[in-house]
């Protein structure tokens, strides 16, 4: 008798960790972005995407609101704003 003892790839995506956020979320100003890509690289959730200057944004379904993207941005083009803020 066998029951599955492996998990299929990428199935973690069903877990929408954006629900963890209660305090803050990132606002990508998309004004002075130089597309250095470091926000995309540092995000622990891997939920930031972008392709070229001023195109970077994050998937709020997964963002836990840590704020490291804002910290690493060399152009201060990402600001952490209160969760309730309309964007």
């Amino acid at each position, binding site marked *: *008798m*066998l*029951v599955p*003892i*492996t*998990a*299929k*790839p990428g199935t973690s995506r069903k877990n929408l960790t954006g629900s963890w956020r209660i305090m803050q979320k990132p606002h990508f100003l998309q004004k002075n972005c130089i597309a250095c890509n470091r926000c995309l690289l540092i995000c622990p959730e891997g939920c930031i995407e972008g392709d070229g200057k001023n195109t970077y944004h994050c998937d709020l379904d997964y963002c836990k609101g840590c704020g490291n993207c804002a910290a690493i941005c060399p152009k201060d083009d990402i600001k952490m704003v209160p969760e309730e803020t309309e964007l």
Partner: protein
Amino acid sequence: MREFIEGSAAVARTIRMCKPGLISAYPITPQTHIGENLVQYIADGEMECEFVNSESEHSSASIILGASAVGVRAYNSTSSQGLLLMAEVLYSIAGMRLPLVLTCANRAVSSPINIWNDQQDSVTLRDSGWIQFYGETNQEVCDLHIQAYRIAEDRNVSLPVMVCMDGYTLTHAVEVIDIPEQEQVDRFLPPFKPLHVLDPKDPVSMGVLYDPASYTETRYAIHETMREVLEMIPKVSAEFKEIFGRESGGLIQEYKTKDADKVIVAMGSVVSTVKEAVDEMRDEGEKVGALKVITHRPLPSQALYNSLKHIPQIAVLDKSISLGAAGPLCMDIRSVFQGKDASPKISGFVAGLGGRDITKDTVREIFDRLSGDQVSDQFIGLDVEQVINAT
């Protein structure tokens, strides 16, 4: 072909014919000759196989785990402390349903340190989910390895198998063994087709976390498989006989038990001694018999019950002990009769610990003591004075 060969070397020859892709082993007396023989075959180009000289048994067991996980037939052998050191890896292997085969050359466990034969080591792992076989002779031990791969790799089973052989008594005995032909092994043992495998083309995660909601079912599945394996083992043994021409393996073996008043139940090489004593005593008019347990896990309860239910007095000879309780085999045999109609006297005797010799006289003594009150954990040949006075 019949050859005059050391038990360990015969095991190595058998494993060579099973064509593993990877072997990892670590030295420990008395099984080291198995690995040494195998690595010489590889060095001489007589065997194509990766041999990984691990830095401990915990690692050698993990190495074969990794190899099996990528779909390679793998092998390891160990004893005593090595088996205990790799214990958590063995549980992991069974839980991950990897069809590995491991030889345990039975040896006493520390402390005190003792390198001679008893069955404490493998018996300690009886809860692990590994199928466990005990060979009476080197011939049977070799044959059991081939059957082991066949059973382990069956896609309905996918469980690891431990083949136990008494250290020194069998590993270092040089005797005539019929080494099969490669062609026979190839016919009996198909190539390994793993149930799940680590492959970038179809990536899966193995060894994931199972929470209380899902863990139980994985354990139940192994337990159920063990039950299914009970039916499979005699069939595999029968198939083995067809191809190789001899009886080998199976669940249990009766020896002159049909009309016996007293039977000794035991595992491993000691059964040969019991059989010899039985033959002598039969000539003297005593109705005695022996029952060999070949498969200890899964426990062949039904087969045991059927063979023993008409025997009025049963002695179980354990070469190990669950300290504080009784011999493990004795406790298993008693459990077989629980709630059943037959209710024989079942006495447990402990002998042969740390390699202390079990002779025909020992066997006679057990048959003799069996006539007395039922006992659970009587040590045979105890001589406390002698040990104390040794100082």
